[in-house]
């Protein structure tokens, strides 16, 4: 029995030491948590952690919000979503496929190494050749990167590439330090990533926070924040709790059930920004499907009141659209933005014409919990379609099960999804209406669309290219391989002490965020 006492004693001592030890060792970190109240520290809370410190293998907004501030690129998107030179001083297009870029002088990486044309070549070649990198698909049209001298680099594209500058401004085009990267390798690089952006890496505690500090020798305007923390708080009510108590300055992805709590508090503000994500119904036009009849597809569109969905469910945080290319993305057709068609009587007539006067059953597959209020929107659509005599057989799936159905094209007549545009160019969005990409999914084919899309992809005349994309969208809006619902908004909770303007790409440039 004595042993038992000793054992208990030992256990309790160890426990005590352990708990106090932990608290001592990390009390320094504890202070940082109050950072949200400190005017020189910016604390951002995201709904998910980064997955990597390799900016070319991330492909997530959560990662991009950090990388954009840590790495430089040849170009970048400014606050007004215009392309601006970043590391580039000047550039010229030599012929249809050859571009020459001159780098700014005196750019250094966070380890002091100068940024040269060799680094640009190394970074771009890495992402255009390594198929395992998630950013790879965007860079396929780059053919060669040639170093002319220390500051001059030449890029040769595979055929004319009107979107080159956009690709050089997007995530994944980050300039990596060649020497350092090759010396330490990817694994080590991820533990201590080095870029040439305004903020440099301090630490990353997985599923907790990424800490950044200003880089004194940054080539652009001096960084404004003394310290930036990007925290990962997956539970939305906790994220809002941190916001309300001043623990964080900006919380992303505020779900609808928290809007009231954020809006009702005086010290914070609910800010809604646009995104490139458009919610839509993918329609199967495959022969034999009920929805292969254009009249049925039109009837479905006419039966859905997009404005009512936005007003009632989304409380105005969306815009009804009739195209996949929203305003702000190159190629957008203003006639099809903030626009919808709704006519219940006509929808009934069309169904009768199509031979379904006694009603018809159609399956709708939709995600639940993938996008804000997605399940509720699908249910509302089902009831709207019910009013014109379409019995919707609704299948609501959890996010990954949903993706399996979508990717395997095993959906029946309709599947609801939200598609974004990572390039801010209609060439990215409209590829869905080409024969190859539509195969198995919508099985849509229109010769004119095919022609216009292929022409536009190689067209260096921006004005003509714009008209080509607008025309494609007109045809698509009429033929409806997709029925568009609304452009999805992004909701942020922002402390009242902070000036913050959301961007279409949902990325933050830390220095565009200021204290009041």
């Amino acid at each position, binding site marked *: 029995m004595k042993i038992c006492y000793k054992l208990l004693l030992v256990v309790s001592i160890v426990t005590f030491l352990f708990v106090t030890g932990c608290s001592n060792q990390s009390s320094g*970190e*504890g202070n940082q*948590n109050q950072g949200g109240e400190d005017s020189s520290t910016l604390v951002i809370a995201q709904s998910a952690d980064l997955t990597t410190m390799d900016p070319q293998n991330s492909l997530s907004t959560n990662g991009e919000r950090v990388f954009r501030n840590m790495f430089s690129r040849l170009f970048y998107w400014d606050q007004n979503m215009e392309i601006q030179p970043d590391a580039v001083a000047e550039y010229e297009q030599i012929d249809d496929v050859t571009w020459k870029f001159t780098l700014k002088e005196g750019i250094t990486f966070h380890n002091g190494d100068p940024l040269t044309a060799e680094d640009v070549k190394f970074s771009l070649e890495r992402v255009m050749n390594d198929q395992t990198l998630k950013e790879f698909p965007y860079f396929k049209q780059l053919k060669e990167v040639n170093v002319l001298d220390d500051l001059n680099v030449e890029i040769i594209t595979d055929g004319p590439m009107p979107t080159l500058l956009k690709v050089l401004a997007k995530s994944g085009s980050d300039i990596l330090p060649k020497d350092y990267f090759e010396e330490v390798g990817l694994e080590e690089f*991820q533990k201590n990533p080095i870029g040439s952006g305004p903020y440099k890496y301090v630490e990353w505690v997985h599923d*907790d*926070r990424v800490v950044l500090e200003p880089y004194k020798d940054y080539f652009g305007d001096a960084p404004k924040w003394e310290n930036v923390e990007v925290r990962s708080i997956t539970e939305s009510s906790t994220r809002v709790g941190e916001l309300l108590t001043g623990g964080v300055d900006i919380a992303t992805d505020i779900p609808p059930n928290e809007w009231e709590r954020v809006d009702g508090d005086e010290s914070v503000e609910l800010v809604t920004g646009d995104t490139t994500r458009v919610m839509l119904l993918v329609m199967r036009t495959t022969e034999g499907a009920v929805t292969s009849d254009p009249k049925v597809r039109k009837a479905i569109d006419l039966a859905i009141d997009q404005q009512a969905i936005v007003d009632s469910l989304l409380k105005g945080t969306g815009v009804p659209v009739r195209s996949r290319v929203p305003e702000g993305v190159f190629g957008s057709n203003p006639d099809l933005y903030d626009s919808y068609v709704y006519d219940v009587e006509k929808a009934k007539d069309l169904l009768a014409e199509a031979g379904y006067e006694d009603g018809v059953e159609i399956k709708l597959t939709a995600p639940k919990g993938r996008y804000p209020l997605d399940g509720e929107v699908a249910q509302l659509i089902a009831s709207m379609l019910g009013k014109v005599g379409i019995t919707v057989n609704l299948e609501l799936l959890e996010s990954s099960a949903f*993706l399996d159905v979508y990717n395997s094209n095993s959906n029946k007549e309709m599947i609801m999804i939200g598609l974004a545009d990572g390039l801010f160019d209609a060439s990215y969005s409209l590829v869905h209406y080409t024969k190859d990409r539509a195969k198995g999914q919508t099985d849509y084919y229109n010769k004119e669309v095919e022609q216009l899309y292929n022409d536009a992809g190689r067209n260096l005349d921006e004005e003509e290219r714009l008209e080509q994309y607008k025309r494609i969208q007109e045809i698509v809006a009429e033929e409806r391989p997709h029925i568009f619902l609304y452009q999805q908004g992004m909701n942020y909770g922002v402390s009242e002490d902070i000036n913050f303007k959301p961007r279409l790409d949902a990325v933050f440039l830390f220095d565009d965020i200021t204290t009041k």
Partner: protein
Amino acid sequence: MRKYLIRRLLQIIPVIFIITFVVFVLVYMAGDPVALMLPEDASEADREALRAALGLNDPFIVQYFRFLLDLGQGNFGTSFRYNQDALPLVLERLPATFELAVASMVVAIMMSIPLGIYSARKRNSFVDLFITGGSVLGKAMPNFWLGIILILLFAVNIQFFPVSGRGSLLHLVLPAITLGTGVAAEMTRLIRSSMLEILGQDYMRTAKSKGVNNGRLIYKHAFRNSLIPVVTIMGLQVSQLVSGALITESVFAWPGLGQLLVQAVNGRDMAVVQASVFVIAILVIVINLLTDIVYRLLDPRINYS
């Protein structure tokens, strides 16, 4: 005893083998991880290329044997999500989860021992009824709900504790209470019933008639003898703590093993799921073994030979 230990340790091998197989099959059947890694509108060709690069196109049996071969060399493979070796990712999370689990256990012990003993002594009184009822409630409360309510009350309304994150001792309090409450409820009920049984034993009456004072009677004679079932349950609760940590860690943004495992399962990240489950399985087995050893220390009559 030594023979017994060796036998128990050898049993670990088939257990681990079965666990890794089951987990492998489950994650494999969950579907294509590539679908979750690329954006919705990636083309089939892009997905195919990534799948081929990651070796996901090979037949099940090839993938499984490759996994076993790697495992034989102590390598769980590379995490799709982090693009790093899986085992270090799991091990770096252990301190955070261990800290939370120990703190929850302390909370559970501090709550359950006094409450359990008290309600056994005042059997059927109003207080006993209250404690027993409370323990049912404690057991029934879902972790995530309790966590959210605690945050709302003690971090947002009364801004005393930090809302989330890991750091100081204050950060530990709310998650530990959240995770420890269910365990405390279970243990309170057990201590109560175990105490009641002991209090009815003949030797208790003998001790009492011999004039042993009340405190000594309860704590030395009754409580110590009631510990055996309690230790069993404490051992079993460790696996409960791990499953509770999955939810509690997400609610409090606690950077532990639970969050890692939840996200690995969501992302079908085979290597990390395997490594996490492996580490957890080893922990549970070791703790069960320790529990058996502690039995013997508590009650020399138990013989393992």
